[in-house]
Structures are given as C-alpha cells and as structure tokens.
C-alpha cells in the first residue's frame, strides 16, 4: 500500500503530532472486512506485547489494537480489507488501522476523534452515557484514548482510504 501523505488531512488535534521518522514495522495483519477481530488475534497480540513491553503498556496495547480493528471493520467498506499494523518510530509505539469508508462516515469519525482527543475522560463517560440511552456510542475509540492512554488521529488518503493512528511513548 502506498500512503499519499501529501493528500493526508485531519482536523483532529493529534494530527499536529504526526511522527515522520523511520519506522520499524512489528506486526502487520490484513483482516476480512466482513468479520470482526478474533479472539485468536487478541491472544496473539496479548502474548506479543506482554513480552516486548513488560508492564502496563503490554496490557494496554492489545486492548487498543482490538478496538481499533473492530472500529475499522465496523465503519469501513465491506469490500476492502482492513489493515492493522504495529510499529515503532522515534520512541513511540504506533497502532495503525487502514480501511476504506464513504465520506459521511469519515466525517463522523473525524468529528468523534476530535472530541476524544480534546478530552479522553469526558469522551469515555459520554460514550458510556450514549450506550445507556441505546445510541451508537463509539465506545471502542474512546477507550483507546482514555483507558489505553494513546493519542488518536485520523488521516485521509485517496479514493476513500482512511487511516486511524493511535500512539504512545514506549
């Protein structure tokens, strides 16, 4: 996949923090867009991250990865694969999920990520509240930021390609 960085744009606060240094790719998985993250993938990521990042980070990363992939599948096109990648760059760990989505969904996603990035704790509480009232909560993304303490941002490529990135310090 070639990512068109010149075409990338985002209104999320975290976008200004985008890293550009050389990346070391650790994990790359293509998921069937018609499915959801499997327990097998969760098990693999839990083992891998707990060995590579002992302590709290190793516990938080699989949760974030799972929720990002699930979100990518839920909001992406059913005709395209969802690509998950974990990499290290400039002292950060990045989780990247690429999919394809229609403009209306991308717009909603961008708005949601902006709210989450502005105040993760408040966004999580509001997502739980929406869940209580039967709405679509987008709880998973709020969880990535609040529970997993990762910065979130969104980039758009060409022809409906969407990249959601979560990152934190190693």
């Amino acid at each position: 996949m070639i990512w068109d960085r010149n075409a990338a744009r985002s209104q999320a606060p975290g976008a200004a923090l985008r890293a550009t240094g050389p990346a070391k790719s650790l994990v790359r998985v293509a998921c069937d867009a018609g499915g959801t993250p499997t327990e097998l993938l969760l098990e693999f990521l839990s083992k891998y991250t707990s060995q590579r990042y002992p302590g709290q980070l190793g516990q938080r990363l699989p949760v974030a990865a799972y929720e990002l992939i699930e979100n990518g599948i839920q909001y992406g096109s059913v005709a395209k694969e969802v690509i998950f990648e974990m990499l290290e760059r400039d002292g950060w760990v990045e989780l990247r999920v690429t999919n394809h989505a229609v403009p209306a969904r991308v717009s909603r996603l961008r708005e949601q990520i902006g709210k989450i990035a502005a105040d993760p704790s408040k966004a999580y509480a509001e997502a739980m509240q929406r869940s209580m009232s039967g709405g679509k909560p987008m709880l998973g993304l709020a969880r990535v930021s609040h529970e997993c303490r990762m910065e979130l941002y969104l980039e758009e490529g060409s022809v409906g390609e969407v990249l959601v990135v979560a990152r934190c310090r190693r």
Partner: protein
Amino acid sequence: MKNVEAVPMPEVSSLVARLDGGRLVLEGTMATQNPAADLGPFFKAFHQAIVQDRLKEIVVDVTKLTFVNSSAIRLFVDWTTWIRKEEASPYRLAFVTDPALTWQKTTFPVLKNLAPSVVFLKPS
C-alpha cells in the same frame, strides 16, 4: 436464590461463569464477535431471576475477567438500565473488581457515576 440458581450459565469457550456462595463469578475474557447475542440472553435471564427471587443485592466478582471488548462493556451498561427500570423489585449490583486491571479501573467508576443508586464497587 431458587430462580437465580436455575439460570443456565452461558456456553462461551473463553468465559467461565459460575455461582459461588450466592455471588456471580466471571472469569476469562468476553471478546466474542457478538456479545449481545452470545451473552445478552444470559444476563437478561439472570436479571429476571434476581427480580423473581426479590434479592436486594447481587455480587458480581470480575477480578479474574481479564479482557472485555467494548461491545461486552455494553452488557454491563444494559444490566444497570434494566435495574433502573425495575420499579417493583430494584436491587444493588455490587462488582468486586481488581484495580490492577486497567479496563476495570477505568470502566466501573464511570458506570458507578452513571447509575449511583444501582452500582456499587468492592475492590478485592
């Protein structure tokens, strides 16, 4: 406890659910593709049994529930909603949690804030 004890436990490979001295113990993970379909009927039946038994409190031990996806978190949210709508026989939902597990440390206090008269937290 007659009705509560009669509720069949869910058959999900990654999750062990059992009654232990009147408390519901959940162990493992809740990460199935569709928790509402796989586990929702169990939680609903369990809630209805508690109401029929006129219990004032049910303790749910989640200290060994290591991972729950966001769809499964909604099951706990739904449970509190059912209780809040239960006018005839409301009861308290007391979670025994492990603060060392990040998802529990962040999720249950929020749930408590949303339903303070229903949810109670008991650190292990």
